[in-house]
């Protein structure tokens, strides 16, 4: 291997370090109208009246959309009006939309729209939503159009209920000599991608709808707008340039719909909607919250036998992607452990919070906190080393997942090996607790996690390769370059297979849905895996075509030919060959006659043998493979103030095969950084009216540079036989175990169970008895 595994410089690096990379809002060449939302100041309220008179007085206002019944939207359940009608269901919900000549005029006019509300009782948590007499967020839940596998319960706040019924619980409890039970809760938070969401739309006179959006799912934008509004799908073209981070938050389709409606309202003129940071935090989909209870049983040797798990996901006001998160959370509900008897109820609950979207890890970081904290409680009760109990129960080939998929050496990573490596990196042999002095103590906490990507069973990916006259190759894939460097890795995969110089590969960064083959969505760490497979297939297609024409030119059978270094040559006489330049656009004989033609490579990939989960038992194969990782966090804890510093954080990820070490390290460390911020600081605070009290970066604070600990990252390479060069997804794993490891370290340090997030000093102080 020559290119695979090397830390080659990313193809988008120069653009980004020189500040020349363009994101959606940066393309300002054509005159553009501006859309500005008016958002709800309350969590739950009846809209009594909307007065737009004063707003219309402002010169330059072209349209005001409000109070109109547009078709309902939403991915699994059509429960969301693009603009609220009759009532608002969350603080930040778009109620009206002004379209004006400039952003300033639009804002001015938006500020003059007077909306009268009548407050309604607020559903402020999924637990509250689950109560029998709870206020309903959706009164007509039974009437919505929905996908077959969504199971909303009319006259309740349950948008979806996924069940896992594996083994026999009575047997499981009978074998369990020790049982722990605990409840957990944390509020929604946000992704805080650096680029706020932005979408623009134009409807041309011929009916073509041109959209540009900072999206992880441009192909979904096209499909959904066609679906929702009865547009012809071929007339919708979606462009996505660089995207400045998404983390799942840019997978839902929201602003695109508003931009489309806005453009429609002004005769098809181009309209842009750019979120302010505040809107990006509370109006656009956020990071899901969770309430949970777990009962976990083990025998005296620490072997798990039974787990009963209830998850109440805070789906917010509209179900959208939360339905899938709920399903995914059920599918991997136990974390990466072999448990024979499992019972799980995973509910997607409607609340009066911002509706939820996937968040890096897609339910796995959230459930991992719940499971890993429970395991530490059990380990403590059994007096077993926390890493040892994890090793004893680690999922292994031959085990079955909660949805009963039989695991083998390829479809699951090597968790015991990850645990072993974490032990070394964090110096576990030195002990979990080191007393610095009576006030300060250094404590280590550990965790593990796993993940499969429960994506659509028919999710596609495709790649197209074309040649330039100099023999270099253009690579087109529908993967979005969202900051992960995936497109560079695709180039590496292609270079390796064609055995050519990486510089001979030109990657098309922008995606447009008309000319780029579809890649389902740039989510779920599937970019490298699925697009990588498509690229390999396209490379093979190119090799075949090159050899076919070279065989004629060289008068040799195809099977005697090799491709490398931008030429096709005889295997046993490498100096006899023909360069790409002579054949990639057809071969021309000295007399002018030509054969062959332009070589165009194509490749596609679709995940195989995925199935829906059974409605009653959850049995099914929801994802292709399970990645695993183990983690540790070391904190220095102040026993007097309950404050702490994170000294070290460690992740060991089984990524199958390291394709580009630097980008893999970057992905893991970046994810750890997010995970620690989610664990230690990031949350929305709600008041009794369901208002987000910290909708600004002044008071909502991701980790800043300089606040990070020392990162220790290790890789284990257990190839996934299906993956390109054995690679597994890596983008999410660094995050998923951080909340659990931090929670375990602090619970040990403080001597009290900490089952909420974020783990602030005040939370610890309260758990320790607070002012009592």
């Amino acid at each position, binding site marked *: 291997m020559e290119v695979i595994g090397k830390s080659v410089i990313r193809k988008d690096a120069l653009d980004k370090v020189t500040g020349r990379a363009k994101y959606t809002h940066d393309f300002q060449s054509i005159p553009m109208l501006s859309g500005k939302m008016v958002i709800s100041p309350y969590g739950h309220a009846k809209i009594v009246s909307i007065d737009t008179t004063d707003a219309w007085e402002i010169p330059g206002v072209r349209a005001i959309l409000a109070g109109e019944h547009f078709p309902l939207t939403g991915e699994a359940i059509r429960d969301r009006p693009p603009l609220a009608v009759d009532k608002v269901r969350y603080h930040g919900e778009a109620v009206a939309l002004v379209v004006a000549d400039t952003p300033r005029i639009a804002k001015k006019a938006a500020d003059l729209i007077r909306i009268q509300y009548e407050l309604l009782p607020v559903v402020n948590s999924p637990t509250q939503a689950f109560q029998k007499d709870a206020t309903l967020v959706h009164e007509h839940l039974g009437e919505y159009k929905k996908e077959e596998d969504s199971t909303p319960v009319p006259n309740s706040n349950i948008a979806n209920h996924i069940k896992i019924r594996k083994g026999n619980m009575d047997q499981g409890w009978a074998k369990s000599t020790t049982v722990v039970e605990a409840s957990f809760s944390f509020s929604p938070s946000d992704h805080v991608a650096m680029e706020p969401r932005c979408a623009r739309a134009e409807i041309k006179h011929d009916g073509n709808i041109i959209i540009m959006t900072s999206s992880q799912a441009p192909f979904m934008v096209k499909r959904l707008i066609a679906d929702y509004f009865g547009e012809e799908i071929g007339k919708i073209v979606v462009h996505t340039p660089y995207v400045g981070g998404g983390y799942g938050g840019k997978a839902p389709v929201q602003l695109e719909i508003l931009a489309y409606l806005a453009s429609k309202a002004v005769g098809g003129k181009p309209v842009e909607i750019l979120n*302010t940071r505040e809107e990006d935090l509370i109006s656009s989909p956020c990071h899901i919250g969770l309430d949970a209870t777990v009962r976990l049983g083990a025998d005296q040797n620490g072997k798990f036998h039974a787990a009963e798990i209830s998850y109440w996901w805070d789906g917010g006001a509209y179900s959208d992607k939360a339905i899938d998160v709920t399903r995914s959370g059920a599918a991997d509900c136990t974390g990466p452990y072999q448990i024979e008897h499992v019972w799980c109820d995973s509910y997607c609950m409607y609340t009066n919070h911002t509706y939820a979207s996937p968040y890096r890890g897609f339910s796995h970081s959230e459930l991992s906190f719940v499971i890993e904290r429970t395991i530490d409680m059990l380990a403590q009760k059994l007096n077993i080393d926390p890493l040892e109990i994890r090793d004893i129960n680690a999922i292994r080939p031959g085990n079955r997942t909660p949805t009963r998929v039989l695991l083998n050496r390829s479809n699951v990573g090597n968790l015991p090996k990850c645990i072993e490596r974490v032990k070394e990196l964090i110096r576990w042999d030195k002990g979990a607790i080191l007393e610095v002095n009576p006030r300060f103590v250094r404590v280590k906490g550990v965790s593990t996690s796993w993940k499969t990507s429960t994506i659509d069973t028919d999710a596609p990916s495709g790649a197209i390769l074309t040649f330039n006259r100099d023999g270099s190759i253009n690579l087109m894939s529908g993967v979005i370059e969202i900051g992960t460097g995936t497109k560079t890795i695709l180039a590496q995969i292609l270079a390796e297979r064609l055995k050519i110089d990486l510089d001979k590969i030109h990657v098309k960064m922008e995606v447009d849905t008309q000319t780029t083959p579809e890649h389902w969505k740039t989510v779920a760490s599937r970019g490298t895996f699925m697009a990588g497979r498509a690229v390999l297939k396209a490379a093979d297609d190119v090799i075949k075509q090159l050899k076919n024409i070279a065989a004629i030119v060289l008068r040799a059978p195809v099977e005697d030919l090799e491709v490398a270094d931008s030429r096709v040559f005889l295997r046993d006489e490498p100096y006899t060959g023909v360069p790409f330049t002579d054949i990639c656009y057809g071969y021309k004989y000295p007399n002018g006659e030509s054969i062959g033609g332009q070589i165009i490579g194509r490749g596609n990939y679709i995940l195989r043998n995925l199935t829906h989960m059974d409605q009653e038992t959850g049995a099914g194969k929801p994802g292709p493979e399970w990645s695993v990782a183990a983690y540790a966090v070391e904190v220095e804890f102040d026993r007097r103030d309950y404050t702490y510093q994170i000294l070290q954080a460690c992740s060991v990820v089984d990524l199958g095969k390291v394709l580009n070490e630097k980008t893999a390290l970057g992905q893991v460390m970046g994810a750890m950084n997010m995970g620690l911020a989610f664990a230690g600081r990031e949350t929305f605070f709600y008041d009794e009216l369901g208002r987000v009290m910290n909708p600004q970066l002044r008071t909502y604070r991701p980790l*800043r540079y300089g606040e990070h600990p020392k990162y220790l990252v290790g890789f284990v390479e257990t190839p996934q036989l299906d993956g390109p060069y054995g690679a597994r997804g890596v983008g999410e794993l660094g995050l998923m175990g951080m909340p659990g490891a931090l929670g375990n370290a602090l619970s040990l340090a403080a001597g009290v169970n900490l089952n909420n997030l974020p783990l602030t*000093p005040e939370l610890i102080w309260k758990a320790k008895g607070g002012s009592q």
Partner: protein
Amino acid sequence: MLPFDFEYYRPQSLQEAVDLFQSLQRQGKQSMIFSGGTELLTLGRIDLAFTEAVIDIKDIPECNSLQVNEQRLLLGSALSLTKIEEANVFPLLTKISSGIADHTAREKITLGGNICARIFYREIVLPFLLADSQVLLSGPLGERIVSIHDVFQEELRVEPGEMLIQLAMESKYIRAPFYAFKRRQQWETGYPLITIAALKIDQRIRIAISGLCPFPFRSQEIEASINHKGRTIEARIDGALAVLPQPILADVEGSAEYRLFVLHNLLFDVLAALDQVQG
């Protein structure tokens, strides 16, 4: 993006600034003294600040003075916080300043701007309260020099049209033993849960606090209790906690009860640092 237009003036002298203010007032225009502009920009874009005119004082020489000698320290109100930190003429001031916002913002945030800020922490005022500073104000009726305690109660209370030009203190405060700490909700960024600044002078500990109440303050009652010799440390702290100004903040940064817990420990740290030292 600010959703409103405003007139922008950049006077070159104090007199010009005062005249401008009066002339704008006569025209019935709402005006704002402005230097770094961070509050107008960040609050204006979310409709929490509005003005029809700004008088940018950053070119006025007096507002940019920075003098230190054996007798006194004098600082102009338009000095940016980073400038004050780089000069590092008063270590306590440097320490408090470096905890405010972030470095990029402190390039713009000014001494006067932070003291007059709408966002109520106004932490930079704490060292000036401790040092019994003098304040130079300039307004339609001319200039006046007053004690900071006469014009700063919770916020700067001056006559209409009066501008904060300079602050000065005796040099002995610069060298006094001090203790300062900013406790946040979590880690190293964010507003104060509590910022405490203390120094010892003439054998007495002085304490000023931001973040406990919706205003910064220095309290004679708290200092009396903290300096009550002959009582145990714990009793002195309890005494201080019993005479706190009200209300105690309860917000997203923390509950009132938790703030009191934090304050208790911070007062302990102040005493540990300063009780036994000569000052």
